[in-house]
């Protein structure tokens, strides 16, 4: 039988198929954080069940942590309690924790790939919907609820029905200044926020083959924003090169054995998908969202569509924007470069290339939040920190930060923020905050200009 990449990885992890029911899927790696794990640990304790495979779980603190003075006690009592509870639970149950102050601490979806915890052909889960990020390595990776976190704790498995399969092909060459973020925002704008529901996506074609691992992670990260449980890209030399030599990557003979296996992880020529889409890379432009879901996106320079629909109108009202409006020239007071979508070294290199030798606009508060301690270290070593500081940007410590505003990093009510994060939902970045999602390049240019600029019409660095 001809199999897709998804079939190959899924089928290799099926422990048992329940007649007329779901399958028991084995989970290779379980990532946890402070917000969605405490109730799962409590559930196991109430039942008197131990963690089945604590060595297959890795924890970090990212969602609610402050991004200033991480060496001090967390000021917010509730956040402090959650982080303390994570520390206690990990100690009690023998789970490795990269907590605040640890050189490996970071956003869970930045930390695991850069340490080589994420490897091709794995099944990975985490109580966070952006777990789809790890699909960039040809892994089946998806977000789960806390009940499922408890199930993985108890058995290292989940009960699931196999999702349907979707392939999205993007062929041709991307135009200048079109980044992976634009590619995924374009796809979601074309297909809509619920197009992927019930499906696992494979991204295929020239565009993804030519993309860096950081770019592939940005794309797979936002699979959930079209409703897909996950997205994956077949591992290739780019993948192997990235994984090789990482802290927890296989070494020596084990590396050779794994590499031989990973090279088989490709969709067979005659394998079929439930749904398939084709896009032309040349049609993709730098994108920006205008509404309150990530599917409400346009090419910068295009006008906001004019739909007669109450939900659409409610969304524009929240954003204080008009149908048919052009966003170019819109004054922006906040810029956030960070989140599990765009806080890797490549993202900051691109941002710095637009900022070097310039100053942020006076009206702008610009926040740079590295995805991990390792990225923060790299920013410093490569001299990017000097560029950002000289331009008046605030550089913070790693965490989820203003992507979801669980800590102090919130966008004030009524303010617009150009953000490299993944969700423009009402109140996502703080009650009343209005989010425009865009690439790190667009965010950097916005910070310098203090307004939205049509980057296709300007000379870029």
């Amino acid at each position, binding site marked *: 039988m001809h199999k897709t990449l998804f079939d190959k990885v899924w089928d290799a992890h099926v422990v048992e198929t329940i007649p007329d029911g779901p399958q*028991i899927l084995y989970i290779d790696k379980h990532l946890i954080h402070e917000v969605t794990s405490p109730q799962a640990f409590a559930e196991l304790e109430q039942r008197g069940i131990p963690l089945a495979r604590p060595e297959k779980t890795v924890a970090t603190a990212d969602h609610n942590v402050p991004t200033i003075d991480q060496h001090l006690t967390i000021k917010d009592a509730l956040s402090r309690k959650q982080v303390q509870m994570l520390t206690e639970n990990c100690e009690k149950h023998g789970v490795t924790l990269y907590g605040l102050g640890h050189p490996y601490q970071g956003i869970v979806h930045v930390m695991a790939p850069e340490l080589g915890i994420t490897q091709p052909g794995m099944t990975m889960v985490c109580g966070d*919907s952006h777990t789809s990020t790890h699909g960039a390595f040809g892994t089946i990776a998806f977000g*789960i609820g*806390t*009940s499922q976190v408890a199930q993985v704790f108890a058995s290292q498995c989940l*009960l699931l029905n196999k999702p349907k399969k979707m392939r999205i092909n993007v062929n041709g060459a991307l135009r200048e200044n079109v980044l992976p973020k634009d590619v995924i925002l374009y796809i979601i704008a074309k297909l809509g926020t619920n197009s992927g529901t019930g499906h696992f996506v494979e991204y295929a074609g020239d565009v993804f083959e030519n993309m860096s691992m950081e770019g592939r992670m940005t794309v797979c990260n936002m699979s959930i924003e079209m409703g897909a449980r996950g997205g994956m890209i077949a591992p290739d030399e780019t993948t192997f090169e990235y994984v090789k030599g990482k802290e927890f990557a296989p070494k020596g003979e084990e590396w050779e054995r794994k590499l031989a296996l990973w090279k088989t992880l490709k969709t067979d020529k005659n394998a079929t998908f439930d749904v398939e889409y084709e896009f032309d890379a040349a049609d993709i432009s730098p994108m920006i969202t205008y509404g309150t879901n990530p599917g409400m996106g346009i090419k910068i320079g295009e006008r906001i569509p004019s739909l007669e629909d109450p939900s659409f109108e409610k969304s524009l009202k929240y954003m204080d924007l008009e149908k048919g409006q052009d966003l170019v020239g819109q004054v922006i007071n906040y810029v956030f470069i960070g989140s599990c979508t765009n806080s890797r070294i490549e993202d900051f290199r691109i941002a710095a290339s637009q900022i070097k030798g310039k100053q942020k606009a006076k009206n702008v508060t610009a926040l740079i939040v590295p995805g991990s301690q390792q990225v923060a270290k790299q920013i410093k070593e490569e001299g990017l920190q000097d560029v950002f500081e000289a331009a008046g940007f605030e550089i913070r410590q790693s965490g989820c930060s203003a992507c979801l505003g669980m800590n102090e990093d919130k966008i004030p*009510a009524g303010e617009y923020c150009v953000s490299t994060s993944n969700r423009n939902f009402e109140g996502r970045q703080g009650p009343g905050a209005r989010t425009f999602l865009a690439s790190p390049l667009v965010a950097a240019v916005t910070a310098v200009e203090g307004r939205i600029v049509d980057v296709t019409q300007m000379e870029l660095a």
Partner: protein
Amino acid sequence: MQKFTTLTSTAVPLPIENIDTDQIIPARFLKATDKKGFGENLFRDWRYTKAGDLNPNFVLNDTTYSGSVLVAGENFGCGSSREHAAWALEDYGFKVIISSFFADIFKGNALNNGILPIIIPEDKLKALLREIHAQPKIQFHVDLEHQELVVEDLGLREKFEIDPYKKMCLINGYDDIDFLVSKSEVIAAFEKQNTTV
């Protein structure tokens, strides 16, 4: 988990599409370490004004509507995987959510907390939302065993789909942990023979 067999109740209409889990329970309320009390902040930013007063225009603050059935627009529960959204709905008192489409992770989370998500066609959903506005006291009857939603006053009798395993879990109040733990030997054997993991 609480058992679910049948339910008769009035319904609360929420005709908004793409209601994401950040609306159901905003991230700033996810700092609790137990599952209780999330109902207080259900739909927080729609339910309260910026000053913290009850928003009289939001349906949960309108005494015309009540009940343990929520009827909501398409693509309910999209976004974050936070199970706190299901806990908040359950804690507030909702047992059934009716929509034309649910996001995957939310649907799973609801079922794992004894909440029944019922999918009905878009045109019927729109008709139901209109009718609840016109007659707020119409009774909804849900029968899980027969997979049927009945609204006598409207002559509506709609069959709905549910995964047979999840149906069995809801009716008996079972959850996946018990089942998976009972499979520990099979899982250990899988680990031994599987060389890819």
